[in-house]
């Protein structure tokens, strides 16, 4: 048991050590503040700002869109459907299945639809694909917290003369910490996923100004630069990995902090 723990924790540290060792020398202010200049991919000047901003665009877009769908679904299966309703059970099962589907399948699915509609790879297509990827995560984790809301709370609000929508507001307030955790979890998944955006979002050296333009993302920045034969460019891939890891780390620490803070205060 101890050996297993050591191996796993050890490999985690080795991964981080490799990223830092190879990425840190390539890190510079330019790397996070500039878009790639001419000759960036043969080791000349420029940075990864296009991929950083692109990743945030994709994640912010898909989280907003994802919440727009997940919250009503969760509220519907918990508050409107009866407790042991077949539809609710079936919905939960479907999202469990969707949860387990590899992201490349989502990417291929998104690509098929794009081809069918005659669209080019774009920010919009990327956002849509990542949205489909994270909706199961959002729904399953928000569902868990909404299910734990005591039935008495709904009755309490209703018996004070609250309308259905006022009651829902009380319940949302109760589950707010859970929603934040769910969001951070999905951000972590969405921002780090390369396969779903590979075909759909494309890659570009500039920062997109409209939804129909392609967009760069950090995982793809890693992927493309790592396949370069030039050592300097490869190191930049590690720098991109370092940036990505830091973002995910900060988000998960923030998530832990918030959920702990909320559970302490229980707002």
């Amino acid at each position, binding site marked *: 048991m101890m050996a297993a723990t050591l191996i796993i924790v050890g490999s985690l540290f080795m991964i981080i050590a490799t990223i830092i060792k190879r990425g840190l020398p390539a890190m510079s202010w330019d790397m996070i503040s500039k878009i790639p200049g001419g000759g960036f991919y043969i080791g000349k000047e420029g940075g990864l700002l296009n991929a950083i901003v692109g990743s945030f665009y994709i994640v912010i877009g898909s989280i907003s869109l994802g919440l727009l769908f997940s919250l009503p679904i969760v509220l519907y299966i918990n508050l409107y459907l009866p407790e042991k309703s077949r539809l609710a059970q079936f919905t939960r099962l479907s999202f469990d299945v969707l949860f387990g589907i590899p992201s490349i399948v989502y990417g291929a699915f998104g690509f098929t639809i794009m081809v069918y509609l005659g669209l080019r790879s774009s920010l919009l297509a990327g956002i849509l694909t990542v949205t489909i990827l994270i909706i199961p995560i959002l729904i399953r984790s928000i569902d868990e917290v909404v299910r734990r809301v005591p039935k008495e709370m709904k*009755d*309490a*609000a209703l*018996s004070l*003369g609250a309308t259905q929508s006022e009651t829902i507001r009380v319940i949302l*307030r109760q589950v707010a910490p859970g929603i934040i955790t769910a969001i951070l979890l999905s951000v972590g998944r969405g921002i780090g996923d390369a396969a779903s955006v590979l075909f759909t979002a494309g890659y570009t050296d500039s920062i997109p100004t409209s939804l129909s333009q392609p967009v760069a993302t950090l995982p793809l920045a890693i992927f493309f630069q790592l396949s370069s034969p030039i050592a300097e460019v490869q190191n930049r891939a590690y720098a991109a990995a370092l940036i990505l890891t830091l973002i995910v780390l900060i988000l998960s620490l923030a998530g832990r902090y918030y959920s702990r803070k909320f559970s302490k205060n*229980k707002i």
Partner: protein
Amino acid sequence: MIQNLLRVEKFVDSPIETLHVTREFRNQPTFDVDSIFSTHKPHISVRNLNVYLTKNHILKNVSLDIPDKAITCIIGPSGCGKTTLLKTFNRLLQNSIDVKIEGDVLVDGENIHGKDVEIESIRKKMGLLSQRPCPLPMSIFDNIAYGPRIHGVRNKKSLNVIVEKRLKEAGLWDEVKDRLKSPANSLSIGQQQRLCLARGLAVEPAIILGDEATSALDPISSKKIEELFLKLKDQYSIVLVTHTLRQARRIADYVIFMYLGEVVEAGTASEIFSNPKEKLTKEYLDGYFS
């Protein structure tokens, strides 16, 4: 009174007739002179109420009256429909799926299952205390202010007055006046239940419904709640579902004994506890079944 109820049942054959008979019945002098209704007029009247939940017949032709400004205890073994009955009073039941309600529930003479009835105004008339206290996810102050706020009280000063008044009424003011802004969950469970009572009172109901409101509390907290009920019964009609016969003996003015979804016997506390007319009631009170 029970004879009266039985008399109605004899009349009743079909649901349509039910409605008719009920109306007629209400115009007659319904009750014995020595019953509680000579001094307390009926506040809630239930006539031929049948409730089906997922096709189970939960309440069977229930007819009863709840006296105004008195404590009514509904007693009976588990699963006899006490809670279901209580929930039909403020129409919380209709949120359950597969529920069918037949018959009349009249509050202040108005049929609450009528078509034009605004459900929120019915619920506003009744404060509900559930088995486990359930504070809303907000501060102590906001819990009390929630009801008045959703009914349109926005003025900060009026809210302050309401919160102080209701917390005092529920005997909680001295314990929480210095921490009104702290989360309601930080209170002890007994305090939470009194907070829920204060929260219910803040919407100015006429009736307090308690669904085993003290069963999750420690003896001292339950005693406090019981004392509050006794204090509040001059202003409110209180209906309590209880498992504890001793509690019913201590505080009830009027007792309704239910068994398997039917009202077996109803009468003043002294009648029921000292001289039950039905064999079933006597057996229950003697602890043959529970």
